[in-house]
C-alpha cells in the first residue's frame, strides 16, 4: 500500500454502510498493515490527522491494540506504544471536552485508547520481562493511571507550548513530561479541582477507571494468574476512585456548580457497578486485601432516599436499587451487616433485631416510591424492585427461620411476628401478579426456603409452640396465593396483550412454583391444615346454585384450589387413605363442583385466544382432579356414574367440533380420554357391573369412520373397555367371551367393510384401518393382568377360563387370524411395516404370559409359524423383518420345550438364510437382529442352536467372518455371540460337550479372526473383544495359548510384544485388567501413543 490516504480510504470503505468491494479482502489488507513494523507509525498518523473521521481515529487506536499484543519484546517499543497511547488519549480528550456534543462519536476511539492503557497497566505491573529488565529507564510499575491522566490532561490544558507539539513523543520536553506523569501523585484537592473543572473531565475520569477495572475483571476471569496488579489497585487506584465516586455520590460537584436539581451522571453508576463486580471477584482471592465499599454503599443509600417524584422522578432511586439488587443477588455479604440493617428498615419499615430506634421515615420513602411505580404503571421497575427486595430477604432467610421457630436465639418473639406480618403483606400486594406486581411471584421462593429451613431444624432446637406458629404463618401464605394463581389473573394478562407470550408463560411458571411451594408446605401443614382446607373450599357449598353474576369468579376459585389439591392428592393412594376419603365424603359438593368446573370449561365456546387458553387450563385442572379421585370413586358409585357421564359428554363435545379450533379440541380430547382410561383402570370392578354396556355403546359409535376422534382416543378407549371386560369374570368365561367377541366383531366388521371396498378407498382409509388394528392390540393388552393382580372369582374359575379359551367356542382367534391374513396378503398393506408390526403385536400378545393365564389371543405355535412363513415372502423385508424376528424370539421363549431342532432349522433357513446374501448380510441392523436372535435362543434353549445344522453350516462360518467387521453394532453382536457360545450357564452336560468339541475344531480360526479383528479395529471398539478373549482363556486355557502363539505372528510381526501379551494375559484376572493388557498389546502393535 503506497500512501496513508489509501489506507484511510480502505478504512472508510470498511466502515461504510454498504461497502462496494469485498470486506474480507479489505480486512485482510488492513490487518496485514496493523501487524507490520509500520503499525505504530500508521496508528500515530491516523490518530493525529485532523481531517480524518472518528472511524479512522478508532482504527488508529485499534492498531495500537494490535501492536500491544504483538510487539512488546523490547522496552523501547513498549514505551513507544505506551507514550503514543497516552498522548493520543489526552489530545482526543481535549478535543472531545472542547465540544462534547459535536465530538460525541470520538468517545469510541477514546475508550479504545483507555482500554489499551488498562492493558499496559496490567502488563507493566505483572509481566516478568518488563520488571526484570536492567535498563534504568524501564518503568517497573505504574501506580495509578488516573493520576497520570489528571496530570497530563492538566498540563495539556495549561501549557500551549506543549499542546502544539503534543504528539511528538520524541521531543525531550514531551518525553520528560510523560516520564514524570507515570508515577506522579495527585492530591485529593487536586483530584477534586480537576473533576470540578467541568462535568466532562469528571466523566472522562470515571470512564477511565471504569474501563481499567472492567478489563481487569475480564482478564482475571480468563484465569490469568494476576496478583500484583490487584495490590497496586488496592493501594492507589481504589483510593482515587473511591474519592472520585464519593465526590459524585455526595453531590459535592453539584454544590460546587450550584446545581440544586438532583442529578447525577450515568457514568457514576456504571463506574460503581464495575467496581463492585471487581471487588466482589477479588475479595475471594486470598492474596488480595479486601477493599471496603461501605462508604460508597452508605452514600448511595442516602442519595437514594433523596430521590423523589419531584426531584428526579425517582431516576436515581432506580439506579441505586439496581446496584443494590446486583449486590444482593450475587455477593450480598459485600455489604456489612449494619448497612443491611439500614436497608431492611428502608425496605420493610421494621428490623429483625430491634424495634427501638427504627427510623421509619426511610420506609415512608420506600412506600412513596412503590406508590409512584404503581400509580404510573411502571411494571418493569416494580419487578426490579421486587427482585431486589426478595433477594435481600433471602440473605437472612435462615436467620428469620431461627428467630421464628427455634430457641437458639434469645429474641423478641413479637419483633419476629411483626416482621412476618410485613412480609405477608408484601406477598399480598393488591395487584395482578406478573401483569402489575411481582412481589408475590418472587416471594414464592422466600416462603419455600423458609419452609425448608423450618423442616430441617432439629427437633431439640424448636420452640414448644413452633408447630402452631408454622401453621399460622403458612396457612396465611396459602390463603394469599390461592387468589393470586387464579385464572382470572391469567385472563387479565391475556386480555392486556394476547400476543405477549412471555407474560403468559411467566404466569404459568408462577402457578407451577406455587404448586411446588404447596408440596413443601404440606410437610408442615399436613392434610389437616392444607388438603382439608382445599377440599372444604371446593366442596362445602353448591356452586351450581350461584347467581349468574360473579359465578365465573367462583369457578376460578375452585379451579385454583383444585389445581393445588390435585398436586397434593395425586401422590396419595386415595382408596387406602381413610382420612382423605372421610373428608371427601364430608364435603358433599366436592365432586359435583369439580364436575361443574369441567362442564363449564367444556361449554366455553372458543371465541378468542384468551378463551382457548383458559378453557384448556380449566379442563386440565378438572380432568386431572377427576382422574386423581379414581381411588375415591371405587367406593362411591353415584359419583363414579356422574364422572363417567360428564367425561363422555365432554368427549362428545370435542368430536362435534369441526376444524376451526381443532388444536384446542384435540388437546381437550386427549385430556379427557386419559382421565377416562385412569378411571376405567382403577374402577374396573365397579364399572364392570352396570356400565359395561354403556361403554361398549360409546366405543361403538367412536369406532365409526365418521366419528371425528383421534386414533389415540379410539385405541385408549379400546384399552379402557378392555380393563372393564377383563374384570367381568364372576359369571364365568362365556359371558366375558361374549363381550370380547362383541368388541372384536365391531372392529373386524369395520375393517372388513374397508377391505371390501375398492383399492383406492382402501388406500384412503389406511390410517383408519391401522388404527382399528391398534384398537385390537390395545384391547388385548388390557386383558393381561398386572403381576400383583388377584381376582378371587377368576382364581376359582381359572380352569374353566383356561379350557374356554383353549377351545375358543366363539372362534375369536380364527376370525382374527383370517383378518390378519387378509391384511398381510393385501399389497395395499403388506408393504407398510406399520401393518406388519401391529399384526405381529396381536399374534404375539399372549406369548409372554404364564401357561395357565387365559387370554383370547393365545395363538398356537403353528398358527404363528404359518403366518410368518406364508407372508415373509411378500412383506417389505428391509423394514418389516424385525417384527417377524421379534415374534419369532417370543415364540421360541414361550415354546422352547415344544420346539424341535428341525423346526428351528427350518425356520432359521426360511427367515434368515434365504435372505442373507441379498439383504441381511448387507444391513448391519438386520445382521445384529439375526445374531441377537441366536444369542436369545442360546440363552433360553441352547440345545436348539447347538444341535442345529445351521450352526456349523451357516452360523459359525458367518460369525467367524464377521469378527473383523467395521460396524460397531456387528462387532458387539458377534463377539457377544461367541462369548455366549463359549460361556453359557444354561448348558446341559451334552450341550457342554457339544460346544467343546466345536470349539476344539474352530478354535484356531476363532482366535485368529478375533485377534485379526481386534488388531484392525478402532480403539473405541476394543472393549467389545475383551469378554470373548477372557472367555477363551478361562474355558480353553491351554489351547488358547497355543492358538494365540500360532495366530499372532500372522497378524503382525512383533514377537516380543506378542510374547509379553500372551504371558500377561494368562496371569491376569478381572475384566478391567484384561482390557488393559489387550489395550497395551493393541497400542504397541499399532505403534499408537497411549493417552
Amino acid at each position, binding site marked *: 500500500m503506497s500512501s496513508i490516504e489509501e489506507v484511510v480510504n480502505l478504512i472508510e470503505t470498511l466502515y461504510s454502510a454498504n461497502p462496494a468491494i469485498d470486506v474480507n479482502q479489505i480486512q485482510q489488507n488492513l490487518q496485514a498493515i496493523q501487524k507490520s513494523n509500520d503499525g505504530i507509525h500508521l496508528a500515530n498518523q491516523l490518530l493525529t490527522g485532523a481531517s480524518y473521521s472518528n472511524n479512522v481515529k478508532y482504527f488508529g487506536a485499534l492498531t495500537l491494540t494490535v501492536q500491544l499484543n504483538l510487539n512488546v519484546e523490547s522496552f523501547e517499543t513498549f514505551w513507544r506504544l505506551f507514550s503514543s497511547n497516552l498522548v493520543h488519549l489526552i489530545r482526543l480528550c481535549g478535543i472531545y471536552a472542547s465540544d462534547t456534543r459535536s465530538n460525541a462519536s470520538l468517545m469510541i476511539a477514546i475508550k479504545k485508547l483507555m482500554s489499551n492503557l488498562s492493558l499496559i497497566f496490567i502488563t507493566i505491573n505483572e509481566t516478568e520481562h518488563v520488571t526484570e529488565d536492567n535498563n534504568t529507564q524501564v518503568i517497573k510499575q505504574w501506580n495509578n493511571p488516573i493520576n497520570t491522566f489528571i496530570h497530563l490532561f492538566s498540563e495539556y490544558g495549561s501549557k500551549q507550548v506543549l499542546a502544539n507539539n503534543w504528539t511528538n513523543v520524541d521531543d525531550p520536553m514531551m518525553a520528560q513530561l510523560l516520564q514524570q506523569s507515570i508515577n506522579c501523585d495527585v492530591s485529593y484537592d487536586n483530584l477534586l479541582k480537576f473533576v470540578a473543572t467541568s462535568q466532562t473531565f469528571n466523566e472522562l475520569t470515571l470512564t477511565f477507571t471504569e474501563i481499567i477495572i472492567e478489563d481487569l475483571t475480564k482478564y482475571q476471569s480468563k484465569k490469568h494468574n494476576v496478583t500484583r496488579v490487584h495490590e497496586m489497585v488496592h493501594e492507589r487506584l481504589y483510593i482515587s476512585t473511591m474519592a472520585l465516586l464519593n465526590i459524585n455520590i455526595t453531590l459535592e460537584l453539584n454544590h460546587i456548580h450550584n446545581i440544586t436539581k438532583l442529578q447525577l451522571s450515568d457514568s457514576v453508576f456504571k463506574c460503581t457497578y464495575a467496581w463492585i463486580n471487581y471487588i466482589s471477584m477479588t475479595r475471594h482471592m486470598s492474596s488480595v486485601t479486601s477493599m471496603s465499599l461501605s462508604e460508597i454503599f452508605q452514600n448511595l443509600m442516602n442519595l437514594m432516599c433523596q430521590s423523589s417524584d419531584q426531584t428526579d422522578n425517582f431516576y436515581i432511586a432506580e439506579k441505586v436499587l439496581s446496584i443494590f439488587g446486583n449486590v444482593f443477588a450475587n455477593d450480598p455479604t459485600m455489604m456489612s451487616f449494619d448497612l443491611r440493617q439500614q436497608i431492611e428498615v428502608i425496605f420493610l419499615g421494621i428490623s429483625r433485631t430491634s424495634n427501638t430506634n427504627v427510623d421509619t421515615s426511610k420506609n415512608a420513602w420506600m412506600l412513596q416510591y412503590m406508590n409512584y411505580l404503581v400509580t404510573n404503571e411502571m411494571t418493569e421497575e416494580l419487578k426490579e424492585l421486587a427482585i431486589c427486595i426478595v433477594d435481600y430477604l433471602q440473605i437472612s432467610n435462615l436467620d428469620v427461620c431461627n428467630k421464628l421457630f427455634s430457641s437458639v436465639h434469645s429474641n423478641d418473639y413479637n419483633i419476629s411476628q411483626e416482621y412476618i406480618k410485613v412480609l405477608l403483606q408484601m406477598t399480598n400486594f393488591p395487584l395482578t401478579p406478573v401483569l402489575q406486581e411481582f412481589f408475590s411471584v418472587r416471594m414464592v*421462593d422466600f416462603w*419455600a426456603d423458609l419452609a*425448608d429451613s423450618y*423442616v*430441617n431444624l432439629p427437633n431439640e432446637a424448636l420452640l414448644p409452640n413452633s408447630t402452631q406458629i408454622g401453621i399460622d404463618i403458612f396457612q396465611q401464605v396459602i390463603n394469599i396465593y390461592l387468589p393470586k394463581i387464579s385464572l382470572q389473573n391469567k385472563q387479565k394478562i391475556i386480555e392486556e396483550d394476547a400476543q405477549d407470550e*412471555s407474560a403468559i*408463560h*411467566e404466569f*404459568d*411458571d408462577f402457578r*407451577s*412454583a406455587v404448586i*411446588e411451594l404447596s*408440596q413443601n408446605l404440606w*410437610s408442615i401443614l399436613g392434610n389437616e391444615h392444607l388438603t382439608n382446607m382445599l377440599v372444604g373450599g371446593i366442596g362445602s357449598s353448591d356452586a351450581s346454585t350461584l347467581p349468574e353474576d360473579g359465578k365465573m369468579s367462583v369457578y376460578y376459585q375452585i379451579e385454583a384450589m383444585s389445581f393445588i389439591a390435585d398436586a397434593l392428592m395425586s401422590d396419595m393412594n386415595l382408596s387406602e387413605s381413610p382420612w382423605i376419603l372421610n373428608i371427601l365424603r364430608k364435603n358433599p359438593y366436592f365432586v359435583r363442583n369439580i364436575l361443574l368446573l369441567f362442564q363449564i370449561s367444556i361449554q366455553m365456546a372458543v371465541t378468542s385466544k384468551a378463551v382457548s387458553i383458559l378453557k384448556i387450563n380449566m379442563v*386440565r385442572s378438572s380432568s386431572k382432579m377427576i382422574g386423581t379421585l379414581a381411588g375415591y370413586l371405587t367406593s362411591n358409585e353415584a359419583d363414579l356414574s356422574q364422572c363417567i357421564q360428564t367425561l363422555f359428554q365432554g368427549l362428545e363435545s370435542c368430536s362435534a367440533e369441526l376444524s376451526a379450533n381443532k388444536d384446542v379440541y384435540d*388437546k381437550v380430547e*386427549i*385430556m379427557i380420554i*386419559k382421565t377416562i382410561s385412569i378411571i376405567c383402570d382403577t374402577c374396573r370392578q365397579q364399572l364392570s357391573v352396570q356400565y359395561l354396556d354403556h361403554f361398549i355403546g360409546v366405543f361403538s359409535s367412536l369406532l365409526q369412520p365418521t366419528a371425528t376422534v*383421534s386414533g*389415540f382416543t379410539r385405541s385408549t378407549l379400546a384399552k379402557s373397555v378392555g380393563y372393564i371386560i377383563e374384570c367381568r369374570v364372576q359369571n364365568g368365561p362365556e359371558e366375558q367371551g361374549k363381550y370380547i367377541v362383541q368388541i372384536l366383531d365391531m372392529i373386524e366388521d369395520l375393517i372388513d367393510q374397508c377391505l371390501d371396498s375398492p383399492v383406492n378407498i382402501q388406500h384412503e382409509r389406511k390410517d383408519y384401518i391401522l388404527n382399528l388394528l391398534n384398537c385390537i392390540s390395545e384391547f388385548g393388552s388390557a386383558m393381561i393382568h398386572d403381576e400383583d393382580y388377584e381376582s378371587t372369582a377368576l382364581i376359582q374359575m381359572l380352569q374353566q377360563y383356561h379350557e374356554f379359551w383353549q377351545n375358543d367356542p366363539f372362534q375369536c382367534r380364527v376370525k382374527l387370524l383370517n383378518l390378519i391374513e387378509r391384511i398381510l396378503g393385501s399389497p395395499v398393506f403388506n408393504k407398510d*411395516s*406399520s401393518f406388519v*408390526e401391529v399384526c405381529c403385536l396381536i399374534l404375539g400378545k399372549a406369548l409372554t404370559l404364564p401357561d395357565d393365564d387365559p387370554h383370547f389371543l393365545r395363538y398356537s405355535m403353528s398358527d404363528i409359524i404359518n403366518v410368518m412363513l406364508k407372508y415373509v415372502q411378500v412383506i417389505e423385508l*428391509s*423394514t418389516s423383518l*424385525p417384527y417377524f424376528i421379534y415374534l419369532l424370539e417370543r415364540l421360541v421363549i414361550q415354546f422352547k420345550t415344544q420346539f424341535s431342532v428341525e423346526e428351528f432349522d427350518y425356520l432359521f433357513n426360511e427367515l434368515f438364510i434365504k435372505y442373507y446374501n441379498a439383504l441381511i448380510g448387507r444391513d448391519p*441392523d438386520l445382521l*445384529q*437382529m439375526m445374531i441377537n436372535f441366536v444369542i436369545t435362543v442360546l440363552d433360553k434353549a441352547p440345545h436348539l442352536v447347538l444341535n442345529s445344522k445351521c450352526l456349523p453350516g451357516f452360523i459359525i462360518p458367518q460369525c467367524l467372518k464377521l469378527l473383523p467387521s467395521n460396524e460397531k*453394532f456387528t462387532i458387539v453382536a458377534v463377539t457377544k455371540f461367541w462369548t455366549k457360545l463359549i460361556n453359557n450357564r444354561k448348558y446341559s452336560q451334552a450341550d457342554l460337550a457339544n460346544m467343546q468339541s466345536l470349539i476344539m475344531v474352530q478354535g484356531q480360526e476363532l482366535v485368529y479372526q478375533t485377534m485379526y479383528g481386534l488388531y484392525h479395529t478402532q480403539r473405541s471398539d476394543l472393549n467389545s473383544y475383551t469378554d470373548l478373549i477372557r472367555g477363551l482363556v478361562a474355558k480353553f486355557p491351554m489351547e488358547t495359548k497355543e492358538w494365540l502363539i500360532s495366530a499372532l505372528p500372522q497378524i503382525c510381526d512383533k514377537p516380543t510384544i506378542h510374547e509379553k501379551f500372551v504371558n500377561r494375559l494368562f496371569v491376569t484376572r478381572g475384566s478391567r485388567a484384561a482390557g488393559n493388557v489387550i489395550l497395551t498389546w493393541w497400542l504397541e502393535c499399532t505403534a499408537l501413543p497411549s493417552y
Partner: protein
Amino acid sequence: MSSLCLQRLQEERKKWRKDHPFGFFAKPTKKADGTMNLQKWEAGIPGKEGTIWHEGVYPLTIEYPDEYPSKPPKVKLPSGFYHPNVYPSGTICLSILNEEQDWRPAITLKQICLGIQDLLDTPNPNSPAQEPAWRAFQKNKADYERKVVLQAKQYAK
C-alpha cells in the same frame, strides 16, 4: 453426600428457581420422612414447538452421585422411551452427560435440560442406544414420526 456436592446442588436449585426455561420443571424429590432429597430430582422436558415432540412433557429423573460435580448426574427418561439415543432402561446417551466425553463440572441443570430437549428432535446418529427407534429413524421416517407423535400424546401436557 460431600459438602461440595450439597453446596452445588443447593446452588443449582436456587439458580433453577430464579431462572429456568419456560415449560420445564425440575425439583428435588422427597425422602420418606418428608425432607428433601437433593440428590434425586424429577423434571419435565417439554417437546419443542414446531416439532413432532411438541405435544408432550417428558418426565426425567436426575440422580446426582456423591462425586458431583466432578461426575455427571445420571439422567433417565421412563424405561422403554422411544428415542434413538435413549437406552431401553431410559438412560440418555448424551455427550454432556458422559464423564469421558463432554461433561464439565460447570454444566448446569438448565443446560442439561435444554440439551435433552434439543436431543429429542435431533438425535445423534453416532450414539445409537436402542434398536427400534434407531432403525425406524434411519430407515422408516414415517413410522418413526408416527410413534413419536403417539408417545407425545401419552405424555401430553
